[in-house]
């Protein structure tokens, strides 16, 4: 595409393993687009496993290897500021990816907004409850299960969920920051709340699919067959299957490949010395934002199967076949 851009090195630095999306969707999407735009370019991929220091190490090593553009999904948005400054001091462009870097002006920001995701999780739950004419009687309400207390992204989602729930008319009975996003912890906590509140739990707003699965397991283990609506996030196969089986209410599907491709596009433009066109400006940074989709049983086929994010075979194995039929995914 551009003669100036060849043999360049681009780094794609991802934050953690809390969901598989980075290795299963974001990086393949980025790589595919880069191969299209600049076949001779070299792409460095690293995942920091939720460790700030490791991300710094990976960032430095990307610079050592001569990266011209670094796409950074920061483990800690605040801490990333110094990385951005350091890179820009050496003439290296930084694209903030997925999570913003408010304290430093990155060269571009490509994302969906985690706080917005949190809000849509909550909104979807509230709408569902309202639609089902559930009213919060005395002592009734919803549970909120957040992500890891030491994870900045979890903090943003938590904020968003609060935004959606706080004035919804459904009080929060109890909320929990799940250490390490660990599903067993979420399960243990939810079990305790079930003992406490029993039938008064109208729904659960969980920050990702893992913790949602833990909550569902808790309800099942308490012998409840009708699980109240439980939200999720990340659209993992396991969660989609739970939705098909009717155990989970929703999840959030992020078009990661598309966003990653956009990031690749912008990276190539920056290397070529062009100025990519922003949609908007966030935190003083030219930005391109994408809207995640809330997936429920109703739109699962349309959003997941039809958009080829997952195939019917992946989802409809064994005992999910029946549910798939019901939703019209398979015949």
């Amino acid at each position, binding site marked *: 595409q551009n003669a100036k851009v060849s043999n360049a090195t681009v780094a794609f630095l991802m934050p953690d393993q809390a969901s598989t999306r980075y290795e299963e969707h974001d990086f393949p999407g980025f790589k595919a687009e880069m191969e299209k735009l600049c076949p001779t370019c070299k792409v460095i991929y690293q995942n920091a496993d939720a460790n700030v220091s490791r991300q710094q190490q990976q960032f430095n090593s990307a610079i050592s290897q001569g990266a011209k553009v670094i796409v950074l999904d920061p483990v800690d948005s605040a801490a990333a500021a110094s990385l951005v400054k350091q890179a820009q001091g050496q003439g290296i462009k930084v694209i903030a990816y997925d999570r913003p870097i408010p304290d430093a002006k990155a060269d571009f920001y490509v994302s969906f907004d985690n706080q917005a995701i949190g809000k849509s999780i909550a909104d979807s739950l509230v709408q569902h409850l309202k639609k089902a004419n559930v009213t919060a009687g005395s002592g009734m309400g919803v549970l909120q299960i957040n992500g890891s207390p030491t994870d900045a992204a979890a903090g943003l989602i938590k904020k968003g969920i609060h935004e959606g729930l706080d004035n919804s008319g459904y009080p929060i009975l109890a909320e929990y920051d799940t250490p390490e996003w*660990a*599903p067993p912890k979420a399960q243990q*906590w939810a*079990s305790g709340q079930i*003992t406490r509140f029993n039938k008064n739990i109208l729904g659960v707003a969980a920050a990702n699919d893992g913790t949602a*699965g833990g909550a569902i*397991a808790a309800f*099942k283990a308490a012998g409840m067959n009708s699980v109240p609506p439980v939200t999720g996030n990340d659209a993992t196969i*396991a969660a989609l299957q739970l939705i098909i089986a009717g155990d989970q209410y929703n999840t959030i599907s992020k078009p990661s490949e598309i966003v990653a491709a956009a990031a690749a596009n912008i990276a190539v433009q920056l290397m070529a010395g062009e100025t990519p066109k922003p949609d908007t400006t966030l935190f003083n940074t030219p930005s391109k934002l994408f809207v995640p989709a809330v997936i429920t049983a109703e739109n699962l086929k349309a959003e997941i199967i039809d958009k080829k994010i997952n195939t019917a075979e992946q989802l409809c194995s064994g005992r999910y076949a029946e549910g798939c039929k019901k939703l019209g995914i398979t015949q």
Partner: protein
Amino acid sequence: MTKGAEQNAQAAPLLDRRDERVKHAEGIGGAVRAFWDRIRSGDLGSLPVVVGLAIIWTVFQSLNPVFLAPNNLINLLFDCSTVGVIALGIVCILIVGEIDLSVGSVSGFASALVGVLWVNQGWPVSIAILAALLFGVLIGALYAVMFNRFGMPSFVATLAGLLSILGLQLYLLGSTGSINLPYEAPLVNFGQLLVMPDPVSYALAALPGIVMFVLGYRIAARRREAGLSPQPLTSLLLRCVLVTVVLEIIVYYLNLDRGIPWMFGLFVGLVVVMNYALTRTKWGRQMLAVGGNREAARRAGINVRFIYMTAFMLCSGLAAAGGILSAARLASASQQAGTGDVNLNAIAAAVIGGTSLFGGRGSAYSALLGIIVIQSIASGLTLLDLSSSLRYMITGAVLAIAVIVDSLARRSRASHGRA
């Protein structure tokens, strides 16, 4: 024989009662007095941990009356079983004076393996479980080889294992992230729902007392025959009745709600078997000997390498078993399984229960006691609405309090010359 011994022989005292410097307890009064003496001198076994536990329970109960509700206690028992099995393995490895940092990873990988083989590949569940257990045992054997052949410190070998196996787990689940186990499967039911029918639980609760009595009676008879002091029948009876009554009350209380989980039954069964193996078999004796003084054990002709091999294999094998149980409990195998504080919790349970980190001292029951302490704290805090910062602080503080009681008792014991 000296004249003193001859004099004794005239009065025909029992073989082990010839030393006039030792006070012996006679009858029930004596037993009570001896017990009181032991309390004063701090030789209490696990009593202090139990006292610490009682304090924790009282406090949590007063803060939220749901805590001691049978339903919550039953949840507690379910949760205890998974990490408890891992802690049992840790007890084995601590007894020989080594450590295994990779139990978390092994448990996580085992759950992933069951998920992949059973759900994704469609293997029969029993084969998948066997494969996971086999994997655990093989990992343990690998550590043992590193330790025996290369003399690699177990801390480093198992740290390398922790990382590698975590990598394997991520790799195995790489494409899916987590795998749901079918809710209706017997394995998941076992981990989530299955409880003992009431008569079975009452019968099982009566068993320990009966076995204790029968064995105690037979041993007392044999000792009397051999010219050794037998345990007085009254005090034996007293203890058996006490144990039975306490257990039956607990069972009754829990049967008010769902009842005793089979999974907890499995855990306790493993503890009892392990306790038997450690205290009443040659192998167990040799484990303690190797942990206490490796060189002395070697000189006594013990196959020290074999003992380490069994200890590592048991530890990793039980870790894998714990992993399978927690997959069953969660009805899912995920990338997060076994990460986080599983390692620390399992080791801490063993240590809190009274197993020494330095080898040579420990019992299977310490895993049971320790995990109950840890899970009680976790469960109690779950019922209070706390921010995570407060939750961490309080967990730490409560843990400290639970152990201080025990430490103080041990301290007084040491100052009475019984280390």
